[in-house]
């Protein structure tokens, strides 16, 4: 309505024209600012996290702000080392010992654990002290907020600061978590804060959600370097209403954020993709079979993860463990650090491990994983297929161990009271699984080249099986199994890796993973957390039962309906009604006998209006009559009446009592209602609120209806 008023006034004067133009492009300006700030914050977090991660291993004394890779950037040592160079001092060296040896190993183990505990303790105490809402992933709550529910303080500035700092610290502590989910929360906080600068968005909750959807898209865009994937993620997972205008805004926001982070260039490799891989070989048709197998495995692992994590989160919520959050974080960090240090693959940062698993073995990989019996004799050919050396088998065992460790640790880590996400751990698990399958296939192809599946494309000396590609497919499958995303997952995957050729394989794996996952357990991880926490979120599944509105409405058989009459209640009556009942709003009827509906009034507005009246109007007393009509009453004896027609909603949505619940649920979903009134033969019969609908759905699905919480 404000918009229509402003547009109408454009012709009147130049000032009004400027105000009209400001109103029109304020949406774009707001989204531009959100994108820029999100890109900056993400760049700061990337650089900060990569610096602090390497702080566990050592320090660069001449330029303490550089991490290990940057410190050894221009070192001219012409031999390979494991990443160390003379300018980088590991902690044993700083303590005065040599770099190698058993004692040095223990000293570096000790310092690694110490730094990890320090970061984790700092993160947990900052969260506890300043902004308890900054814990967890944030995506389930953002989904609930975007579906219409308001959680006050969830998107505030303290939450923003603590979540950014806490995320950097948690990632650097070496815990099994990622930073993508919390990035969405951080971006939404930024969106919320900036929307207050523009009154068009700050005062209107529904319009603010457009900005929040766009901000969520920017969050994924900077977390992965995947702008289109971000928009699709916002469309598929996070947002509830996504009209075309929101699509445009999200597109723009993700674009700006990706541009800003590209110019900050946090990884120094000029690619905005995180795990840039460039495979030159096409895939053979037979690759589809392992891709489907990986999809099935991915769906299974995803379900196992979801069930395990839900069980542990439920345990944490209802037992004494929930009273010691900081201790829990410290214990998990200690266990993670102690277990991950000995295994060289778990000691690596998770993103680095994924990069290692995705990359093709070539001249520059000196890792055990690439210990093939290659001679590099023929200069002009590509890297050819070869028998695996002993290093590869060693690496496979270590990777299997890493897989089990990561799976168990992530189940315990996700949901702790520090900012945590789960995209990167899922990608990591899938990459390990895929790489092992890929190495198996490769050795099969090497040892049996005459078999029909390999005969055509795998002629001797050629290279047709690429284990890195299988790692990518495995990562896609497990992430799909955990979150049950489809299109956004594929787009994110090929934007992450640059491997556009392999879309068909990725799609096959993601589809299979989703089918298997849905067959084994209905909900993805975010929906499961929403159900666990009892948020009033109306899911998008179809309502398949045949109940009617009359079965669900309040009041039930033996209760009376609390109504307000339009001109015969006093302030005293209304205040008593507000005190005795706890409904969120009350229908207003013509009179108690006729029960003809006039409108609906909210508790909050009633409270405000009565308080204001007590202060502003002279002579008002508890015996003043409250009028919801527009006609001023003629009588002038007694205290002055209170005219409250302004706060009355005269167009509430109504249904009749015979409306099937399927239609009612659809209306709640599409119109974003909080309550609807039920009439019979034109007279008011009852009220259905969103809470009633949710309880009813749960009852129909044989779940516990008492777990739905509401304010």
């Amino acid at each position, binding site marked *: 309505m404000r918009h229509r008023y402003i547009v109408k006034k454009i012709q009147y004067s130049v000032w009004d024209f400027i105000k009209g133009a400001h109103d029109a492009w304020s949406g774009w300006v707001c989204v531009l600012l959100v994108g820029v700030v999100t890109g900056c914050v993400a*760049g*700061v977090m990337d*650089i*900060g996290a990569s*610096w*602090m991660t390497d702080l566990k291993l050592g320090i660069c004394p*001449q*330029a*303490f*702000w*550089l991490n290990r890779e*940057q410190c050894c*950037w*221009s070192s001219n040592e*012409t*031999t*390979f080392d494991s990443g160390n160079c003379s300018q980088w001092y590991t902690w044993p060296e700083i303590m005065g010992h040599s770099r190698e040896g058993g004692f040095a190993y223990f000293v570096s183990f000790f310092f690694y654990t110490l730094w990890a505990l320090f970061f984790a303790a*700092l993160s947990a*105490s*900052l969260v*506890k*002290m*300043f902004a*308890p*809402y900054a*814990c967890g992933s944030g995506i389930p709550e953002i989904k609930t907020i975007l579906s219409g529910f308001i*959680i*006050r*303080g969830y998107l505030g500035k*303290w939450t923003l*600061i*603590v979540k950014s*700092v806490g995320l950097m*610290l948690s990632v650097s502590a070496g815990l099994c978590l990622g930073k993508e989910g919390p990035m969405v929360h951080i971006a939404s906080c930024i969106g919320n804060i900036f929307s207050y600068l523009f009154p068009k968005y700050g005062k209107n909750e529904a319009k603010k959600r457009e900005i929040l959807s766009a901000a969520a898209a920017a969050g994924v865009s900077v977390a992965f370097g995947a702008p289109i994937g971000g928009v699709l993620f916002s469309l598929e997972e996070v947002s509830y209403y996504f009209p075309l205008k929101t699509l445009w805004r999200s597109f723009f926001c993700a674009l700006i954020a990706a541009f800003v982070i590209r110019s900050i*260039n946090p990884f*120094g*490799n*000029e690619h905005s993709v995180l795990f840039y891989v460039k495979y030159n070989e096409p895939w053979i048709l037979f690759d589809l079979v392992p891709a489907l197998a990986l999809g099935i495995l991915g769906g299974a692992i995803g379900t196992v993860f979801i069930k395990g994590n839900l069980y542990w989160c439920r345990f944490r*919520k*209802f037992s004494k463990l*929930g*009273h010691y959050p900081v201790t829990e974080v410290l214990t998990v960090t200690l266990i993670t650090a102690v277990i991950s240090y000995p295994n060289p693959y778990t000691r690596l940062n998770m993103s680095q491990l994924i990069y290692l698993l995705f990359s093709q073995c070539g*001249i*520059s990989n000196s890792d055990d994983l690439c210990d093939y019996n290659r*001679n*590099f*004799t023929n*200069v*002009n050919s590509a890297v050819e297929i070869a028998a695996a050396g002993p290093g590869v088998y060693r690496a496979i065992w270590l990777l299997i161990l890493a897989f089990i460790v990561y799976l168990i640790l992530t189940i315990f880590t996700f949901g702790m*009271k520090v900012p945590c996400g789960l995209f990167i751990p899922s990608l990591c698990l899938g990459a390990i699984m895929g790489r092992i399958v890929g190495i198996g296939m490769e050795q099969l192809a090497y040892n049996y080249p005459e078999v029909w599946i390999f005969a055509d494309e795998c002629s001797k000396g050629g290279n047709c099986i690429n284990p890195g590609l299988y790692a990518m497919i495995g990562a896609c499958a497990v992430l799909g199994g955990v979150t049950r995303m489809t299109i956004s997952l594929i787009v994110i995957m090929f934007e992450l890796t640059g491997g556009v050729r392999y879309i068909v394989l990725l799609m096959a794996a993601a589809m299979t993973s989703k089918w298997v996952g849905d067959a084994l357990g209905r909900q993805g991880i975010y929906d499961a957390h929403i159900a666990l*926490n*009892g948020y009033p979120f109306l899911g998008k599944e179809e309502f398949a039962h045949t109940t009617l509105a009359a079965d669900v409405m309040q009041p039930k058989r033996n209760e009376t309906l609390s109504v307000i009459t339009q001109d015969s209640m006093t302030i005293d009556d209304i205040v008593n009604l507000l005190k005795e009942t706890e409904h969120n709003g009350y229908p207003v009827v013509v009179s108690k006998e006729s029960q003809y509906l006039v409108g609906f009034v909210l508790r*909050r507005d009633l*409270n*405000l209006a009565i*308080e204001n009246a007590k*202060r502003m109007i002279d002579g008002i007393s508890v015996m003043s009559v409250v009028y919801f009509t527009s006609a001023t009453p003629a009588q002038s004896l007694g205290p002055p009446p209170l005219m409250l027609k302004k706060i009355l909603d005269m167009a509430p949505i109504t249904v009749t009592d015979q409306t099937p619940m399927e239609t009612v649920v659809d209306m709640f979903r599409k119109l974003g209602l909080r309550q609807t009134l039920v009439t019979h033969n034109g007279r008011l019969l009852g009220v259905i609120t969103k809470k009633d609908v949710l309880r009813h759905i749960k009852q129909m699905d044989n779940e516990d209806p008492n777990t739905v*919480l*509401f*304010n």
Partner: protein
Amino acid sequence: MWNKILIGIFIISMVETGLHVEAQYEDKRCKCICPSLSSVLNNTKETERMMVIENVPRLKCDCENVIMPRIADKIKGKEREFCPRCQCKFENRNTSIIKFVVILVIWVISLLVVYMLFLICLDPLLNKRVKANYQEHTNEEDDVTLSGVAGPSVHPMGARSNVLNRVGHQQDKWKRQVREQRKNIYDRHTMLN
């Protein structure tokens, strides 16, 4: 006022660190990795892979300009076999952004830690006198913030200025919010209010 002082200290420290460090960390490099020479020559003793890092422009970042000058006398005629197997990559970074960001992060974390310690240790002592004069809103269950009517009543305190009153009032409101959030998350284990 506090903000300006902090920003001033920050800028001074940045300038000082900038003066101390010599410019030995360049921002561009060309990184070439080649297999060991024993793959083309039969009688050489080197068996390690070779990695060379040099600062050359992007267009000159390839085998001929970077590797050949170093091993020209050893390779003698087999350059065309050796070069295709080398991988050369040109990389670019910005150390000043990294320095700025890391120092900013350290500052922010130290500020937060100092404030947290202040709140834990000193605040209860300082506020014992002040708390006696404030009425607190104990209605934490209420979702509604009545903007017109809210706020604890502020007794006129002759000695204190209005700014300090307002800061203290804001801080109390914030503390109340955090306490409520904490109650939600840690006691009732739900994010709803």
